[in-house]
């Protein structure tokens, strides 16, 4: 029982970063009906830039954090300009394919930046842990959870209390009507990419600081985890992304404990398989269906 609770707590903490990755996918999908496959690679390259400074100039950890965040946002904007802004609005597939190609490009850049397989990644957080009754809480993971909660709270305020959030939701509801109401979709989308890159950079930093190492495969890993968490929660749903991320974290933590390390990733795919069979729209996916139904009612 103690193991079970401990695993669940660990899973929720690590799952909070999955949730942030999923939010990056779900906002882009919810607003543009497009998938940005290069999202994970964007974060990876941003973190690589930070690592590069760390390796060559031994800069302070804070500089690494700042570089990671700024470079991730810049790469995110680059991806938006190249794969999304430049491609026609109705060509969602073309965007996805080009984001896949750009993913390869970003990986190549990272490998040339730092050619070895793995590098150690500096942690801002004082790695320590403390006991709470029979449970053990790791400092990095608590930081991760707190960061995720702050990001989600800020995003919620942004989406529901600001004019920018209103514009974003208006575009998601009806892109054409939004344009005739004076909303500049191109600008709003550019900001959205910068925004999700920021969220992704924070998630990426928290994960890498916990792992204490970085490889070029982090991009692949982050894209997979983010996509799976989004699919579990329901594509395009913000609460779904959070729920999906936490669920994925918890299931992985249990699989790792009860079945062994090699089953951790497998459990994620089994969970995704089960979800696709039992509830293809994801946990909170009915909202998307609801919206389509509304479209038929001529609203």
């Amino acid at each position: 029982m103690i193991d079970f609770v401990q695993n669940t707590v660990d899973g929720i903490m690590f799952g909070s970063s999955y949730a942030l990755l999923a939010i990056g996918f779900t906002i882009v999908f919810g607003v543009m009906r497009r998938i940005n496959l290069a999202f994970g690679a964007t974060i990876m390259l941003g973190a690589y830039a930070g690592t590069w400074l760390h390796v060559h100039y031994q800069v302070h950890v804070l500089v690494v954090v700042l570089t990671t965040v700024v470079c991730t946002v810049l790469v995110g904007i680059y991806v938006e300009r190249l794969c999304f802004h430049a491609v026609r609005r109705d060509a969602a597939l073309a965007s996805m394919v080009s984001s896949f190609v750009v993913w390869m490009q970003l990986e190549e850049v990272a490998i040339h930046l730092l050619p070895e397989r793995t590098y150690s990644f500096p942690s801002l957080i004082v790695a320590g842990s403390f006991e709470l009754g029979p449970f053990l809480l790791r400092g990095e993971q608590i930081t991760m959870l707190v960061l995720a909660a702050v990001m989600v709270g800020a995003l919620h305020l942004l989406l529901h209390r600001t004019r920018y959030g209103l514009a974003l939701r208006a575009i998601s509801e009806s892109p054409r009507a939004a344009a005739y109401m004076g909303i500049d979709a191109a600008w709003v989308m550019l900001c959205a990419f910068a925004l999700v890159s920021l969220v992704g950079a924070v998630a990426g930093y928290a994960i890498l600081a916990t792992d204490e190492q970085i490889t070029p495969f982090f991009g692949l890993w982050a894209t997979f985890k983010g996509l799976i968490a989004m699919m579990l929660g329901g594509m395009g749903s913000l609460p779904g992304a959070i729920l999906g991320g936490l669920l994925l974290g918890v299931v992985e933590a249990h699989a790792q404990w009860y079945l062994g390390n090699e089953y951790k990733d497998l459990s994620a795919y089994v969970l995704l398989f089960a979800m696709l069979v039992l509830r293809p729209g994801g946990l909170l996916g009915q909202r998307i269906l609801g919206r389509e139904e509304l479209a038929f009612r001529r609203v």
Partner: protein
Amino acid sequence: MLELRGLSKHFGGVKALDGLDLTVDEGDIFGLIGPNGSGKSTTINLICGVYGETAGTVHFRGNLMNGKPPHTRLRAGIARTFQNIRLFPNLTVWQNLWVAQNSSQDVSAHGFLPRWFGATRRTRKEIARLLELADLGHKGDELASNLAFGEQRRLEFARAAAARPKLLLLDEPAAGMSRQEIDNLGRRIRRMRDSGVTILLVEHVMELVMGVTEQIAVLNFGYKIAFGTPGEVQRDKAVQEAYLGTSASKSRPVDGSA
């Protein structure tokens, strides 16, 4: 106010609109009528930038609008309603109006904070006024998708008004409305004009068009076939033929179905 010169739109071989000249003066309620597929909706779509024109120019208050995207045209003062209502279904009635308020230059000139966080007092007051005018005062917090059809139409009208346009394009606003609702709509349109908005009305419902407009242009197969006051247009031979479908349909192949 609005000047169209030689405006044309071809879809492949189909000439949806062919060389339309039209001038709408400030303060007019201008009617644009014609049988189905005569190019009325195409004209509206060209004025607000849905697609690019094949040839010709659109001038609005002396400025060339060709090539400008819809959001720029709205900010210049051209707002529209849609033939099939296009609200933001999962936003509340109040938020639907806020989106439009959001975009009008007037309001966004308030500085950084009110621009990003919440609505200013002035915006709230303005939205409350618009809700009242649209008889939706008690429905501000409803989702737009929960409104009845007539209410949705009124909300769309109010949303266009919220953008504080100089020119309002109404694309068949009376479609599906009852007699009484049409009378109400007529009053709303006149009130809108009296507050200084020029109106271009595309409509099939003749009692509305003949009741509120001062000038009417009649289109058929992408051409303007008549122009004048409601009385003049009703007496026009070419117009009667277009609507009854005699010589007009013989002289031109029926391909203007856009």
